[in-house]
Each structure stands twice: as C-alpha cells, then as structure tokens.
C-alpha cells in the first residue's frame, strides 16, 4: 500500500501534470519515449515529446525505455532519497531499453528534481517517506 498516494486517480493526475510541465520545458531535447509501469496503485503512463498517455490511451505504442516501479519508489527517486544505482541494484526500479538510452535520460532530468518538490507542496504530498 502506497504511503504517498491513497488513490490511483490522484497519482495519475499528479504525475501527468508533473511530466507535462517537464516535457514542455525540455522540448525537443527529449527525443526518446518512456513507458512507466507503475505499481501500487497500478497504472501505466507513456511519455514522448508529444505529451502523456495514460492506461488505455497508450494502445500499442512502443517505448524506447520501459520502467517498472512502485509509486513510492518513484517518489523517493524524485526526492533524491533513492539513487538510481541503488534502485536498480535492489530491483526497486527495473528497466527495459538500452543502458545508453537510460543514461542519456539522467542528465535531462536535472531540472525536474526541484520542480518535483514544488509539486509535492502544491499537491500536499509528504517530502520524506
């Protein structure tokens, strides 16, 4: 059971808003597509430079990198409480997609950490778990 999100609707809304802003900021820098398979609460989110698709909207779109993780793990990652090597080594984040592509993504995410905290404040989410 997630300690951050009590219901799926709120989790989807939160991450959709967060990623929409991030994509607008990154523009053409984000030239790869991502699929998040989120657990507890369960949902799927597909992201590319055109925007965000959730669950059924995704259809058979293929992503360059697929991440499987729980929503609490995502939260800890964005709060920088969990490093990517630790998340990967302990299988809390699992990826499918070439390692160079995963590593290419990391520097692009830099501006997102500070923004994530702002979103947490806006949505009244805990900034530590």
């Amino acid at each position, binding site marked *: 059971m997630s300690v951050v999100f009590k219901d799926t609707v709120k989790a989807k809304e939160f991450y959709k808003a967060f990623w929409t802003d991030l994509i607008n900021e990154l523009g053409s820098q984000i030239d790869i597509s991502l699929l998040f398979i989120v657990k507890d609460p369960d949902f799927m989110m597909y992201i590319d430079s055109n925007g965000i698709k959730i669950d059924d909207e995704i259809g058979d779109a293929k992503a360059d990198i*697929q991440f*499987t993780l729980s929503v609490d793990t995502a939260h800890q990652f964005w709060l920088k409480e969990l*490093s*990517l*090597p*630790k998340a*990967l*080594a*302990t*299988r809390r*984040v*699992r*990826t*499918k*997609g*070439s*390692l*160079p592509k*995963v*590593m*290419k993504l*990391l*520097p*692009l*995410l*830099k501006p997102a950490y500070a923004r994530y905290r702002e979103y947490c404040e806006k949505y009244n989410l805990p900034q530590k778990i």
Partner: protein
Amino acid sequence: MDYLDISLQLSEDDIAIKNAAHEFAEEIMRPAAKALDEMSAEDGVAKKSPLWPFLKKSYELGYHRILLPEAYGGLSLSPLQLNLVLEEWGWGSMGLGVLLGVAAFPFFAIALTGDDELIEKYVIPFCECTDGSIRGCWCGTEPEHGSDILYFDDFFKNPKIKGNVQARLKGDSWIINGQKSAWVSGGTIATHGLTFLQVDPSKGMAGGGVCVVPLDKGVSRGKPLEKIGQRDLNQSEVFFDDTKIPANHMITEPDYYPEMVDLILGAANAAMSALATGVARAAFEEALVYARERVQGGVPITKHTSVRQRLFDMFAKVEACRALSRAVFNFNFNVSPPVTEYSIAAKTRCTQTCFEVTHEAIQILGGNGLAREYLVEKIFRDARASLVEDGLNEMLAAAGGLTITETYPRKSSDIY
C-alpha cells in the same frame, strides 16, 4: 581478417564501428601488445614503453569513452556496437582490451549515480581526455580475498572474515587503509580506482562499499606483476595508507553492496565474453592461414580431412561464442539490473572455449605453435589467464549455480 557476420540486423553505423575497431585492433593494438608481451613488466610501464603511445592513440580515437553517455562526452554505443568493439579488442589483444575497459570503470560507475558534483569533477574530464593521462582501475581482489568477494555461499556474511582494505567515516571523509592484491589491472598506472572495501565488518564480506578513490595522495603501488599471460596488461598491488576521500565518493554502502557487486559482475562478465570471442577468432584465423600454407604429406595440411575437421570445430566454437556473447549483451545491456547468471554463463563458456580454441591452434601449428614468432603462442597464454580473470570460472559457476538453484526459471515479469 574480416568474417561473415550472420546477423542481418547490423546497420551501416554498426558495420562502420566494427570496421574501425578492427583497424584499430590490427594496426594499433597488435603491435603494441606484441612489444609489451616481450618486455619485462617493469619496462612495460617505463617512460619509453609502447604503452603510452598506445594509450594516447586509443584516447584520441575515443575508445575510452565507449561506455559513457553522450551527455557527458561519451560515445553512447548501443549494446550490439559495444559487443562488436569488444570482440575486435579481444582479437587485437585481450590484455590491452581489459586495460582500456578498466580505464573507464570508475567513470562509468560515477555516471550511473547521476551525481552532478562527481560527474563534473571526474566523468567530464575523463571524456575530454585525449592523451591517456586519466586512467581508471578496479581495486577489488585482496591478498587474502580473491573468490571471497563473490557471493556464492554463507561465508559472505561471516563477520569473522575481515577485508584487507577497510574504510571508516571520520567527519565528512572516509579514511581508507589496507592493501589490494597484485592483480589490479592498470594498478601501477591508474589515476583513479573504483575500490571495493569493507565498511561494516560486522556483516563480513557483505558489509562492503564501493568508492571512487583518486590514487594520488596516501596511495602507493607495488612492482608491476610478471605473469604468464596477458603480459601486455599492467597489474600491481595498490596500498592505501590513511587515504582520505570525501563522503560522497562512497557511491555504494553496505545496505546494497551485495546487489551492486552482482550488477557490476553482470556487466563485466558480459564484456569478458566478447573479448574472449575475439581471442578465439584470432586463434582460429591464425590456424587456418597457417594450415593453408603448411605442406605435409606433399599437400597443404588443409587437404587432410582430420585437419579440416579440427578447423571446422574451431570455427563452430567461435560462432557459438559470438552468438552467446551477443545474445547476453543484447539482453543484459537492455535490461537493468542485468540478469547476472546469463553474463556468467557467457563469460565462463566463452573463456573456456577460447582456451580450447587457442590450445587447438597451437596443435595445428605444430612446433611453430610454441614459438614466440607466431601469435598463437601469445594468445594461448592470454586465453589461459582469462579462466581466472574477473572471477575464476569454477567460482563464477558456483555463484551462478546459487542463483539458478534459487530462481530458475525466471519470469520476464520479474526482470523488466
């Protein structure tokens, strides 16, 4: 010699990268490797050694950056491209291939952390380096702990087993003391070490940490190691004497050290399988070329059915190595974390096969196979070392065996 690639998936880019790596292996690696093999280990790192122009050329061509992300100045090669390059490096020289691989090791590990400060300080200068002056190494093996650093039995958590290198936190710094064994590849010449050490002795070998250590202050080295094979690969002990590193240089702490060792092994063993494939291919080619010319019984020995059978067996073994190595690269560099038992399978199979093929190459060359003048003499010795390198094959099998007895068959939904 070029070979028919039976993969129809190679793009023009892939082929260009493979051809360039082959040219590098033939024109730069092989001559340097031959010269270094014939020198004493001490002369191999002396001022006039061919090692330095080799490193300079390798860095100029960007081969030290193959594992690193584009955003930091790396080449971001795809898993297949990495495999193609490493096979060519193995064909050129296993020892120098390993040296180039470990040179990037600490910087690759830092890049994975995404830590801005460490990336600015270490990864970017490494990628920008074109003279070979920034060189990493992997400080793992210790005088009293070789196979002990692999997790394949309960001993791993035995607090009575003390590491030879220990780190303790003092204020904002880690203080490191102890000794790494003479097997540290690039140990004499490295400027930075990705260092495995004991942080929490109460957890035994499992209480380890992984840190990045600039090897300047508080560090000394042993004499370059003399050995039977991969003589072109410099190796030596590394001693830490109250060596101080900032706290953020400890990139893995005991809470996930065993898992991190597994992840690193998954990448390193896969790389070893590609290098070994290249060595096996080199041996097969040398044997084939020789057999086409050597006349016995009044005909080239390739006219003798038994020689054809033996050459075919070598050919088939090389193809099998490549198929396994590429399949494992394709999987394990496309999922994170890697499924390490598959990398172990590739490393142990490919190095064992490579040893068999180089052994058979000597037999095909007859007496000449034992002579310094012929390449197979060197690559046979290099292949022998690979059965020990990056984990003894039987101990790797013990580690892989522990995993498969507990997890086979794995489900893809548990992997990605």
